């Protein structure tokens, strides 16, 4: 009964590949997010979707494309992966602007 679940948890891939990370929340929240945690542990927002509509896009490269098929899902697709994309990606959700609940993270390593 995980509230915010994301898959895969670990992903190792080569430069230039395209990969996706999936996220689902069963909390009934209307807002979902993708955050990125870099090697220095700084956590920064990438995207925010409210009722399937993009409301925050923090100057993320076009290679990153979020897709929200419905309110409970927000997937992250990354094209042409680069070494610098290696990080932990966290999916999260909230009911409007209330407390945000995070998933367990997806560890992406680009080699």
């Amino acid at each position, binding site marked *: 009964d995980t509230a915010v679940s994301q898959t895969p948890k670990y992903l190792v891939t080569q430069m230039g590949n395209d990969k996706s990370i999936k996220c689902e929340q069963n909390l009934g929240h209307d807002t979902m997010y993708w955050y990125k945690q870099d090697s220095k542990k700084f*956590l920064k927002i990438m995207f*925010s979707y409210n009722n399937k509509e993009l409301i925050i896009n923090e100057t993320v490269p076009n290679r990153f494309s979020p897709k929200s098929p419905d309110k409970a899902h927000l997937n992250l697709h990354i094209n042409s992966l680069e070494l610098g994309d290696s990080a932990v990606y966290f999916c999260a959700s909230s009911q409007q602007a209330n407390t945000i609940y*995070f998933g367990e993270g997806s560890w992406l390593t680009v080699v």
Partner: protein
Amino acid sequence: SQELEQSPQSLIVQEGKNLTINCTSSKTLYGLYWYKQKYGEGLIFLMMLQKGGEEKSHEKITAKLDEKKQQSSLHITASQPSHAGIYLCGADPPGGTSYGKLTFGQGTILTVHP
């Protein structure tokens, strides 16, 4: 833009000791969140503070937002190995409602030796 600085950056304590982690903001805090992260796991929401002087507790963890709303402290009483992890403070942007655009501190790594 708002910046959050946490101190200390890392902390090693003996089990049973009390400890405090601070989070200082460059601007007035409208909503301050404390999360805990364990390696290989996600961020666990601990507490949220909004009002100056507000204090909340959960088990042996107490968080407070100072009157001027520019600093928050997280205090752990009688620490246990289960308290080990990275503690992150996050803040709503100036003016409040952010749709999740929280700014986070760099985290404090807590190690508790048995």
